[in-house]
């Protein structure tokens, strides 16, 4: 609620009022082009903290009434979930977090390089970096995942040593492509948001372009890049269950296997997937709150 009001708009009213009278129109506190970057975190962080227990209650109690008269009772299903819980967390959700960490690391590294390419002086480099960025930013994630999973070798041979590449590593590369492209846009946007006067001042002090970029411009945009970067981390974490479609072991894959070994009773569906929903929410919600808090703090200072 508060997040909506602080950007100067009236709750529920999207457009400025159409009037000729001398009124103060709603104004944007944030520079154009940045607000929508954090759309996901803004939405998530705007949820009140009690959304979490509500979600938990809905996931656990609603099915208890819906399937109460069945042979395999809800109590049995919850009992099954309880038995599987440690396994689902340690072998499942931990894997989602591991995949998201590595994907973010690879995506950030490649994305920063690509983003710097997008602000390069060389036209060729700028154009090709821009093309690669737009290509991967606008491709369906699942398609990219499939391409990488199915074309990457399952092992590499260096000399006489053969190293098997586990599925989840391939998934990391597949997911890091769209992350790379979006980080690239964050870097480009941040660099271009620094006033041109900073470039001119460093130029007139005989700094080389390289020095200007690394000593003057990038240190100033570092803070501005953190909130959108965290926003993408939360989006990525939410997207990690995509890899279950390719058989990589993570929370959703293991939940399905666990339900299978419990004879696939339909009563199991809602507790198991409800748990998945709750644990993703519990992980991403603090990140979103933190993102928005940082974004507010940094936007006041600059």
């Amino acid at each position, binding site marked *: 609620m508060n997040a909506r009001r602080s950007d100067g708009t009236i709750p529920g009213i999207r457009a400025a009022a159409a009037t000729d009278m001398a009124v103060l129109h709603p104004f944007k506190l944030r520079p154009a082009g940045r607000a929508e970057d954090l759309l996901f975190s803004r939405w998530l962080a705007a949820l009140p903290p009690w959304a979490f227990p509500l979600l938990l209650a809905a996931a656990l109690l609603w099915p208890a009434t819906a399937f109460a008269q069945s042979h395999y009772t809800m109590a049995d299903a919850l009992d099954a979930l309880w038995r599987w819980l440690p396994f689902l967390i340690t072998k499942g959700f931990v894997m989602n977090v591991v995949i998201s960490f590595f994907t973010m690391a690879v995506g950030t590294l490649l994305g920063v390089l690509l983003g710097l390419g997008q602000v390069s002086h060389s036209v060729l480099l700028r154009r090709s970096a821009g093309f690669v960025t737009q290509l991967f930013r606008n491709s369906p994630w699942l398609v990219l995942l499939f391409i990488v999973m199915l074309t990457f070798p399952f092992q590499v041979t260096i000399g006489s040593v053969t190293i098997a590449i586990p599925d989840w590593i391939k998934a990391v590369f597949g997911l890091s492509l769209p992350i790379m492209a979006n980080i690239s846009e964050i870097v480009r946007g941040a660099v271009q948001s620094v006033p041109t*006067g900073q470039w*001119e001042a460093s130029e*007139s*002090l*005989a*700094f080389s372009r390289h020095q200007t970029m690394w*000593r003057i411009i990038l240190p100033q945009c570092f803070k501005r890049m953190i909130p959108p970067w965290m926003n993408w981390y939360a989006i990525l974490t939410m997207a990690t269950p995509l890899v279950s479609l390719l058989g990589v072991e993570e929370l959703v894959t293991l939940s399905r296997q666990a339900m299978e070994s419990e004879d696939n009773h339909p009563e199991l569906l809602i507790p198991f997937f409800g748990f998945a929903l709750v644990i993703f929410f519990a992980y991403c919600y603090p990140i979103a709150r933190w993102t928005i808090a940082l974004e507010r703090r940094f936007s006041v200072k*600059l």
Partner: protein
Amino acid sequence: MTDANWTDKQPIVSIKDVHKSFGPLEVLKGVSLDVMKGEVICIIGPSGSGKSTLIRCVNALNTIDSGSIKVEGQEVHDKKLDKLELRKKVGMVFQQYNLFPHKTALQNVMMAPVLVLKEPKDSVETRARALIKKVRLNGKEDSYPGELSGGQQQRVAIARSLAMQPDVMLFDEVTAALDPETVKEVLVTIKQLAQEGMTCILVTHEMGFAREVADRIYFTDRGVIVEQGPPATFFAQAKDPRTREFLSQIL
């Protein structure tokens, strides 16, 4: 970069028949002027007359279409010229200060000599502290630009430029963004520099200041120099009707 044949008996900055267009708009239509070492010249004129463009061409922040600009005998707009070498000789101060917001006042002053000239840090620091004292900001060494007033920021910017020990200083409307009370503290600093023999080219709207410090005043209008002369004759006996009209509106 100094031309081997150049001596300080010749103009330190020599501008000859410079033309410059931004798209269809011709901003400079054949401007020529010479500045001798130690001279202070002021360029005045209405907005959009090409004053700022002209001095930005002197340190190659803008390119020129035709003509020639020489600093210490070296052609500035020679494609082969090392611009970084030129900028070590020519300092510039901007209207919007353009201090680096993530560095303290002292770091702002020290950065270029350490990173560009590769001078040892401790000798640069001694010089930087002396310069900050010179612009009367002792005690503000560790303040960030955001904590300083406009006038204080502009004086740090002057110190930052001086730390490179340039031969020529360019001032591009350095008081235009300041409130009247802080204008004076910046002008006092520039005046002190001028009296110490620094070659200065100033674009300014401060007529009283121009009259006081300038050796010569140039009046530009619509891309040409309309009138020039030492302050005494310039203000008292302007010949060109455009100059007279401008002065009557301002003074």
